[in-house]
């Protein structure tokens, strides 16, 4: 799976969050980090459309500006997402996935009915869900980062791996999908560090656990089917 990350941030160089996210992907393959440069007057539409076509998961990544993305992303959408390309004759984005990585300086607890922001981020990001729907894409649950500057060291480390999975794991939503992703990553590490002899043993143990869980799952579903009769 190839992932295209479209980064829309007017002050990218100053953003610790964006730098952190970029570094998190240093060892990930099949990922394209595509920055929307603020100085451009117009986007090269055919170039941008070719990029979109060449990837399977498209991710809009931006800081929340007035409950939306910075203007550059809207400009990119208006210029690049032409009618024919999206839902006319071409439907070039159909069957691809659309994800959103959004960061905000406000705490998570504020984004709910009755709290100071009143709305959840899922509600505020509806236009992207509508776009995905129109383009016949699968809309992924938004990946949210609240108050990056206040995260503890452990929370930042968790953010690295959760973000890596949002970008590269085909099935990051299920526990089984996460197990398979970790196994895949561990296999990569074994290739790079053949001297670390404990890594293959760790991999075997994790695979055994997964297989045992799968077997228990099948047994349970058989028992449940039997109970239904």
């Amino acid at each position, binding site marked *: 799976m190839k992932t295209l990350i479209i980064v829309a941030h007017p002050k990218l160089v100053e953003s610790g969050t964006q730098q952190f996210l970029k*570094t*998190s992907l*240093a*060892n990930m393959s099949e990922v394209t980090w595509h920055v929307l440069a603020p100085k451009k007057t117009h986007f090269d539409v055919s170039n941008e459309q070719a990029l979109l076509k060449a990837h399977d998961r498209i991710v809009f990544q931006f800081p929340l500006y007035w409950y939306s993305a910075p203007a550059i992303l809207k400009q990119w959408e208006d210029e690049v997402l032409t009618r024919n390309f999206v839902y006319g004759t071409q439907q070039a984005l159909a069957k691809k996935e659309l994800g959103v990585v959004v960061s905000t300086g406000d705490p998570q607890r504020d984004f709910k009915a009755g709290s100071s922001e009143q709305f959840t981020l899922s509600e505020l990001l509806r236009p992207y869900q509508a776009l995905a729907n129109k383009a016949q894409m699968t809309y992924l649950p938004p990946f949210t980062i609240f108050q990056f500057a206040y995260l503890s060291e*452990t929370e*930042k*480390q*968790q953010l*690295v*791996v*959760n973000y890596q999975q949002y970008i590269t794991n085909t099935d990051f939503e299920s*526990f089984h999908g*996460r*197990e398979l992703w*970790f196994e895949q*990553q*561990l296999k990569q*590490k074994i290739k790079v560090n053949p001297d670390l002899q*404990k890594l293959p*043993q*760790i991999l075997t*143990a*994790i695979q*055994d*656990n*997964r297989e*045992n*869980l799968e077997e*228990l*799952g099948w*047994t*349970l579903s058989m*028992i*449940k089917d039997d*109970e239904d009769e």
Partner: protein
Amino acid sequence: MDTNDWVKTQLEELSQSSKQYEDRAFYLALLALVKEQQQRLIQSQGEVDGRTWNPSKW
């Protein structure tokens, strides 16, 4: 020592001794995964036992 306990000890060590930040983060997350696998194994095994012990089917 149980295999999973050995794995957890190794992952704790790797999450502290690895040179790269992303590697330390990876092993820490993998440790959390192994703990959840263990938890799920216990729960699933318990559910199988509980559902098998069904006097109404005797």
